[in-house]
């Protein structure tokens, strides 16, 4: 029994941790898309966030600096994307892919140039138990002996869900995505809202990338996001542009991942190492299945992807 309990807590623990970078990234994407802006660059922003987070943590020895650099590069790339799509009215999908390729190529180039010859690890973020709560059987160890960034997501996601529907800012944001002309007439600065929404979404993606590296892998390597940035976009569709539902989608991925990696050890011990590769497909298949399951009835913000001009 105790073995089973420990196993359940460790599956929960890893599942939540793996879902967190996705959860932060898709929260940001919900905000961007609610303002009518598709951000396809989050994979590239996550990679840059991961690399700069890694680099600055290694150089300064301070995780906080790493996280802040992740946010900073997200802000910068979000600003660039906003300039291209809002001001120059470049097609959002194409411009977003540009940000992806830029982040993908540059992060790998910078890493190989600075660290190419050695294998460098950093002191990862550590899991901190919350007194009292971490004592709850099974769930406590899983939910409340976590990385600080996980606790941040516990607070941030419900808070931003609340603000999206219940604050003036949230109303402006949603009105810009639904009917920018009307919002403009009502005195909302459409361009500013779009800029801020993209920069907010991108900074969360940068933070997500930094956490992936500083919390989970502890090392940087080529393409370490495993396509998570694109999956975060898929989960926004799954979540029907709602922060809480998107969060639920990220948990599907996180838990399938954690169950697969736990089963992996069994199959290796049982003499079927080949199964590893199929198990690692499962979280991705789960996302496709989830998308198929909810494919009917999702309604995107009305002006998603359409550039606004004041004519």
């Amino acid at each position, binding site marked *: 029994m105790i073995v089973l309990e420990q196993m359940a807590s460790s599956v929960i623990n890893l599942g939540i941790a793996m879902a967190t970078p996705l959860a932060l990234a898709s929260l940001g994407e919900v905000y961007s898309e609610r303002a009518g802006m598709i951000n*396809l660059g989050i994979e*590239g922003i996550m990679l840059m966030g991961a690399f700069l987070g890694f680099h600055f943590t290694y150089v300064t020895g301070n995780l906080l600096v790493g996280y802040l650099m992740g946010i900073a590069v997200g802000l910068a790339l979000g600003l660039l994307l906003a300039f*291209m799509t809002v*001001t*120059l*009215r*470049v097609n959002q*999908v*194409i*411009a977003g*892919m*540009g*940000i992806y*390729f*830029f*982040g*993908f*190529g*540059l992060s*790998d*180039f910078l890493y*190989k*140039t600075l660290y*190419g010859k050695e294998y460098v690890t950093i002191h990862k973020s550590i899991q901190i138990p919350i007194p009292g709560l971490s004592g709850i059987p099974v769930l406590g160890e899983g939910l409340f002996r976590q990385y600080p960034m996980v606790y941040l997501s516990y607070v941030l996601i419900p808070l931003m869900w609340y603000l999206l529907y219940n604050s003036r800012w949230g109303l402006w944001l949603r009105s810009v995505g639904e009917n920018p002309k009307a919002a403009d007439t009502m005195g909302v*600065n459409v361009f500013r809202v779009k800029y801020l929404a993209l920069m907010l979404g991108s900074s969360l993606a940068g933070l997500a990338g930094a956490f992936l590296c500083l919390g989970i892998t502890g090392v940087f390597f*080529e393409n370490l996001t*495993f*396509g998570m940035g*694109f*999956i975060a*976009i*898929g989960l926004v*569709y799954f979540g029907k542009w709602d922060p809480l539902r998107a969060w639920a989608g990220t948990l599907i991925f996180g838990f399938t991942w954690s169950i697969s990696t736990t089963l992996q050890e069994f199959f290796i011990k049982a003499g079927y*190492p*080949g199964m590893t*590769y*199929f198990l*690692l*497909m499962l979280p*991705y*298949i789960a*996302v*496709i299945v989830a*998308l*198929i399951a909810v*494919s*009917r009835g*999702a309604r995107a913000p009305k002006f998603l992807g359409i550039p606004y001009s*004041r004519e």
Partner: protein
Amino acid sequence: MAILIKLVEREVPPYMFVAIPVIAFLLAFAIGAILMMWAGVNPLLGYSAFLRGSLGTPAAVIDSLVRMTPFLLMATGIAFSNRVGVLNIGAEGQYIIGAITTTWVTLALQQVVSPGLSITASIVLAIIMGGLWAAFAGVLKAYLGINEIVTTVIMNWLAFKLLQWLLRGPLKSPTAQMWPMSPPLTATLPYIIPGAGLHAGFLIAVAVAVMAYYLLFRTNFGFKFRVTGANPEVATYAGYDVRKFVLFSIAFSGALAGLAGAGEVLGVFHFLYEGIAVGLGYTAIIVALVGKNHPLAIIPSAFMFGVIYNGVVYLQSATGLTYTFSKAIEGLIYLFVLLSEVFVLYRVKVIKVGE
């Protein structure tokens, strides 16, 4: 006071469309020079090694032609899907599926039938499997409205995991030492120039691009396809089945990516290993963008990227700079193409309003 930026379309002579990618390449290489200096490499030394290795000798040019072959095939396919608003990021996975299929079929047939038959069968099946693999994402997109960007990225991961498993299972060579690889293939594509490495796949790729051009611009089907891409509402009004075009475009691009995978395995490597999947399918998206989704313009565009891929190998061996320089350059090229397009095609006016 607020600042408004207005874009005014301007009359642009046709040759300016050639100027857009040229400007983008020059800007990207200029920033590349700064990156080199930052990495402690003399840019003049770096770029001269780069040019010598990719364009300096006839052999170097031939190597660049070999490198451009998969780009040309995959970008031609991607151009079709781009034209109807389908963003196929899955070329990488479709290419892997093509490579796997070709290897499997060739291993089964090369001892049994004539090389010609083995090559033909393995290539045809690679095309079919690449097309079917992509069509799955196409069906989800066309009939369930599921975003193809997400599904194709996911399917790239699945294809790569499948490749890793096969190389350690059914396709494993018993004599593989260093890394997992398949047994050698003997029924492979002939060389155009003996001893120079330029395989018949290059001619196939060029022929495919030219045929794609005819299909797109000289046939009734191509006309309907372009109408659908330019304005889906008009196409629906005219009674075209938009979903069929969407499905066709992604299956077609998958088929060409499958062909590209077959070409690399049968023309270049002559065995299967994980190193075939180095992100060529992602680069092909940039190749299609630079070629403005036009099959004939994609030919020089693919050549430029063949030059980059070939050149960075020499850049690395001459200066020690990492080969991932090519990826940084590619990202920059993509962004600069977008920006120079805006500034060439529009006059950007800054207006100050209000006080």
